[in-house]
């Protein structure tokens, strides 16, 4: 599944259900690669991916820390998660 250049991507709640996938490993290029680049890559999979990932309420965590912007650079071994607003408690 994973190689030395791969990142782990997680999709929670309605996102995971709509995409039909909860977790995957992706090989990233050796050039600078950001959250925005990952979103672009995933959005190319189709309208559903594009619409959900570009929605303003979708959150992104890198290594379990929620990110405000999309300019953080991703490195091999990173864990990226996309999810809708939380609703626990």
């Amino acid at each position, binding site marked *: 599944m994973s190689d030395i250049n791969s990142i782990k991507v997680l999709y929670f709640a309605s996102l995971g259900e709509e995409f039909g996938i909860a977790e995957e490993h992706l090989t990233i290029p050796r050039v600078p690669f950001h959250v925005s680049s990952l979103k672009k890559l995933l959005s190319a999979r189709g309208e559903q991916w594009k619409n959900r990932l570009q929605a303003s309420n979708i959150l992104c965590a890198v290594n379990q820390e929620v990110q405000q912007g999309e300019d953080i650079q991703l490195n091999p071994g990173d864990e990226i998660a996309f999810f809708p607003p*939380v*609703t*626990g408690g």
Partner: protein
Amino acid sequence: MIRVQKEDFDLTAEYHKLIKKGESGAIVTFVGLVRDFNKGRVNESMLLQHYPGMTEKVLKKIEQEARQRWRLLETTIIHRVGELLSGDQIVLVGVSSKHRSDAFSAAQFIMDILKSEAPFWKKEGEHWVEAKSSDDKAAARWL
């Protein structure tokens, strides 16, 4: 103390752990329960998904923040995950302190921030619950 678990929890057991005999003057506990979400279909279950690893980190951060803001003796956060039914316990927040205002504020703070930051998601039957703006507002007043 932080726990994320499938199993139910016991308020009494947690209450007794919060007490430091002779030091604790105030114990505040909050328990969140599953309400009926679909009046037609009784016994439809709720699913609580979470982000293992991140959940514990966020809860620990909330606990630490509460301990910095108020004078607390003990704190407990337990959140259940998995399948739950109407009336089931979902979450317990417990705080002990010398004086009541610290315990009340801290318990409410922990719940408000948990609701807006801890990565849990509820699915009622076939329907993922939408986030409420009232929860964002409740969290914002602690900024």
